């Protein structure tokens, strides 16, 4: 059994430490002591280094003994340094919590060396904030079944540091449009439409800074895209001291694969920028497009996301909230009855009003 994990414990009482977004410090649940991130970072740096080295050594010698297959998935087993319980995680887990003693557990080897993230944005919003945001999300949703918002319980709320690749670069665009300006005037009994045709060319560059692409297969891309943007002014150099109390996974989609999505977004924005600069035309249709992305710095960051899940009528509903800004996204069930009632109501009222006006 591998023991190459670390717990962040309170130096005063050895109770589990959690990073609190409100204070930006690590707090002890038991004695209430609080600590600077840098203090805990210094305190645990040696332990983490040792754990990482032990992990790699054991991986060389006895890796097969640490991995198992459960329900067809390969899992990794660790031993909780606090209570000795067996922690079963997937191979990408970098931070978790012991289900027996509740101690936050870090797997330093997943976050060190070449796997070490460059940056982290610490959680600013708490679990309560996430639950409140979800309740608020339910409001003013006309088609939401009453039973869903009234009786349904949130099954799972989990703070996760999601691995993201951040791509900087410059898109070089050269776009040619066929554009028209249309003027219409009336002369006698004739309506004359004059269309002036133009060949419009725009070429230039658009420079991007850190387009985020989530590097975790488990996270749905739609949710991760929709909770953007993150405020990069709060990016901090990565430290495992921000992780206690939250889950974290290392990336399982490499930068090369993720770059395709970042490039696609950059190309679209470069095109939109060129098209937006062709003003004063009635129509503007691209006839030639040459856009390529010159990639710059690629960095690896852990970004804070609250994942909330619930089940209703046998279907899972997943919500994601930006742990920094509080932006929450997700999909809600639609009540067919309410849909039909609103449709019929609007159609009838509008029909009566128009009937009075037109008939």
């Amino acid at each position, binding site marked *: 059994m591998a023991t190459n994990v670390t717990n962040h414990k309170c130096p005063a009482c050895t109770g589990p430490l959690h990073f609190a977004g409100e204070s930006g410090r690590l707090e002890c649940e038991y004695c209430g002591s609080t600590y600077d991130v840098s203090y805990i970072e210094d305190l645990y740096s040696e332990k983490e280094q040792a754990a990482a080295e032990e992990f790699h050594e054991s991986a060389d010698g006895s890796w097969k003994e640490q991995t198992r297959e459960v329900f067809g998935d390969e899992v990794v087993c660790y031993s909780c340094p606090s209570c000795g319980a067996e922690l079963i995680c997937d191979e990408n887990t970098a931070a978790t919590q012991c289900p027996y003693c509740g101690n936050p557990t870090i797997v330093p080897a997943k976050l060190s060396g070449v796997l070490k993230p460059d940056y982290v944005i610490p959680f600013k919003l708490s679990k309560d904030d996430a639950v409140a945001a979800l309740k608020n999300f339910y409001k003013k949703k006309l088609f939401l079944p009453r039973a869903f918002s009234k009786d349904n319980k949130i099954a799972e709320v989990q703070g996760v540091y999601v691995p993201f690749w951040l791509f900087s670069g410059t898109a070089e665009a050269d776009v040619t449009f066929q554009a028209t300006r249309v003027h219409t005037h009336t002369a006698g009994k004739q309506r004359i439409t004059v269309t002036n045709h133009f060949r419009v060319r725009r070429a230039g560059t658009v420079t991007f800074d850190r387009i985020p692409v989530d590097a975790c297969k488990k996270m749905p891309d739609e949710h991760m895209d929709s909770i953007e943007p993150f405020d990069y002014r709060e990016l901090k150099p990565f430290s495992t001291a921000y992780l206690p109390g939250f889950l974290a996974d290392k990336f399982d989609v490499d930068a090369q694969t993720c770059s395709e999505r970042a490039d696609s977004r950059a190309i679209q924005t470069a095109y939109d920028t060129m098209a937006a600069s062709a003003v004063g035309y009635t129509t503007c249709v691209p006839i030639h497009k040459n856009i390529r992305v010159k990639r710059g710095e690629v960095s690896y960051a852990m970004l804070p996301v609250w994942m909330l899940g619930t089940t209703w009528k046998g279907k899972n509903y997943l919500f*994601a909230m930006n742990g920094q800004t509080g932006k929450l996204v997700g999909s809600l069930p639609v009540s067919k009855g309410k849909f039909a009632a609103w449709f019929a109501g*609007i159609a009838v009222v509008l029909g009566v009003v128009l009937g009075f006006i037109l008939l």
Partner: protein
Amino acid sequence: MKKKLFTALLAVVVMLTVTVPAMAAETVYDMAGILDETQVTDLAYMALQQENEDACGIYIITNHKTSGDVYEYARELYVQYDLGYGETKDGVLLYLSMSEREYALLTFGQYANSVFPHYVLDAVSETFLDDFASDDWYSGFSDYIITCREYLVSGPAAAPSPDYEYNYNDTYYDYTVYDPGPGAGAVAAVIIIPLAAALIFCLVIKRRMNTARARNEAGGYVIQNGVDIRVRQDIFTHSTRHVQQINSGSGGGGGGRSFGAGGGFSGKSGRF
């Protein structure tokens, strides 16, 4: 026997004296008061005979003064007085505005328009203009009704002769559409617009139930002053013109019920 015959004749006379003035009010509207009661009755009787025979009403309206365009005003009166024969409201109207000494001669409906094209209206107007010039109103109106009856009896007019020319002193109007009531378009609008609006509203609200969508742009990550457009070329290449004939007449307006090709108003106006 003689007594019975006398009673029957008396009944006919009484019926005519009661009904003809009532009917006169439906075909002759002498608001300018240029005709006496007998003349109104005679003209109405002549006009009514035609309406019954040929499914096209013949109407006369006089007025002291007209505000605005005489043709437009006559068109409004046609609608306002609910003139026209049968469901298609076919009819021909001669309107006189006494203070301006202007007239409008207009037709409405597919059948009336086919019988009275512009060159026929020119021919009709020639029969009464000389009488009106000498203020002989009754003769002018009589000629108008008789001429209209002749054209109605002969049916839809043939094409005008090649040497026909419009009278430059008059103004001609073509097939302006008017709407005495709701048409199929309005009924369709009352059904389709609410359904479409309700559907759009519901789909927009439904779309808002799912706020998680993949992004295909990165506009929020463009750095400050990160857009540098070095080439801006706007070169004019050529020009095209499209000419569309406007079908509605210069009388304009209206909108709503259409009687298909040849329906709506047609006519002319001028001075006497």
